[in-house]
């Protein structure tokens, strides 16, 4: 189907963009960044915004920088920017690993990381990365800016803390210390398809034992999150297959999986535990 009619705005500056948002806030205004989720929603007429505020012409929103130990990703940075590892170490390698699972290349040339974080689909890879690494979100409105922690950002199925008069200006990821081990595993029925379950893990080794473990799951519950139970089962243990199997199994009772017509909660729970175990295997140091 064709999208319903709307009024198009292409601001050149951030202040113009936030003023437009403030002006049309009661009138279903939507921000257009990469459009790779919004345009399909408009084509189905699930989304029928009266005003579309295209932020692609605001030059400063395209920047990707390292600042004070953080990778700072502005609103219009496309997925494909993460295919090269650049010079931000273990985090760069992790993002380059994850980005390959996001849709397909012609989608990654347009779609943006911040757009995915605002869309907050439960099976979004970037949402899982943000939740697992405790990313920080900066929202901007005509009233000013506010910083939101990832634990507060994800509020429910496709629901975030972003207000209708705000746009996501940037997201900040803490750089990973050198020596951080990482693993990412996703299960989907076809290449590039939505994840039914995925897991991201990072940890370091101190005197041969697991330190600072982070374990996140996505695609399983309404929002991605870290699993404290699994992390507790890893910390201070040896990085062995036995440790991983025990830790992955401890996710079982911690999960409250989504169900839909094809996949019930038990199936997703089982997949999630398997993804955690495989992600731990992938992260594991070579023997």
């Amino acid at each position, binding site marked *: 189907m064709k*999208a319903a*009619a*709307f009024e198009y705005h292409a601001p050149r500056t951030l202040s113009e963009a936030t003023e437009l948002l403030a002006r049309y806030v009661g009138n279903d205004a939507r921000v257009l960044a990469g459009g790779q989720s919004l*345009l399909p929603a*408009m*084509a189905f007429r699930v989304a029928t915004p009266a005003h579309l505020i295209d932020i692609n012409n605001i030059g400063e929103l395209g920047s990707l920088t390292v600042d004070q130990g953080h990778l700072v990703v502005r609103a219009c940075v496309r997925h494909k920017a993460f295919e090269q590892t650049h010079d931000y170490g273990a985090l760069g390698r992790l993002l380059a690993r994850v980005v390959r699972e996001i849709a397909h*290349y*012609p989608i990654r*040339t347009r779609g943006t990381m911040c757009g995915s974080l605002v869309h907050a689909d439960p099976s979004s890879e970037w949402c899982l990365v943000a939740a697992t690494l405790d990313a920080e979100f900066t929202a901007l409105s005509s009233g000013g800016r506010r910083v939101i922690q990832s634990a507060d950002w994800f509020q429910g199925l496709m629901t975030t803390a972003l207000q209708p008069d705000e746009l996501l200006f940037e997201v900040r990821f803490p750089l990973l210390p050198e020596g951080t081990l990482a693993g990412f595993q996703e299960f989907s029925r076809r290449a590039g398809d939505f994840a039914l379950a995925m897991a991201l893990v990072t940890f370091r080794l101190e005197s041969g034992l697991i330190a600072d473990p982070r374990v996140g799951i996505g695609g399983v519950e309404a929002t991605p999150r870290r699993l404290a139970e699994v992390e507790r089962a890893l910390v201070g243990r040896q990085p062995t297959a036995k440790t991983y199997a025990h830790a992955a199994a401890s996710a079982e009772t911690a999960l409250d999986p989504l169900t839909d017509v094809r996949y019930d909660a038990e199936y997703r729970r089982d997949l999630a535990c398997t993804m955690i175990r495989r992600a731990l295997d992938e992260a594991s140091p070579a023997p």
Partner: protein
Amino acid sequence: MSRVTFTVNGGRHVIDVEPRCTLADALREQCAKPGTNIGCEHGVCGACTVLVDDEPVRSCLLFAVQAEGKSIRTVEGLAANGELHELQRAFVEHHALQCGYCTPGFLMLAVWCVENKPGATDEELRDLVASNLCRCTGYQNIVRAIRAVLDRTK
């Protein structure tokens, strides 16, 4: 109506479009470039893949107004002087199409690959073409056709 200026296969086009008009529709209806086929209209099938500033995009997931100032390449730009592009010839030689509906999208994806990833492995090729849907060929012959051109130009 919004006025938009862009180039298609090197030729300048100045068109007036409704903001809701996709680039795919604008190319077909207003730029006399109907070679770009429209399949699903929501970004799943890849039939409408074109190159925008030399990167492959779904032209159904871009409004024409967003293409202001861009350089667009479509399947019509491949053949030159009455000769098919080497990828088009390879698609014929390797039977990489049957009904042909998905072919313009696959060709533009393949053009990007040949120009930017000349060293692509078979696994990378398979990953790339998984982007687009073909319901006739089973993909084997599409991969073979692109492989043949990559090997020849190596």
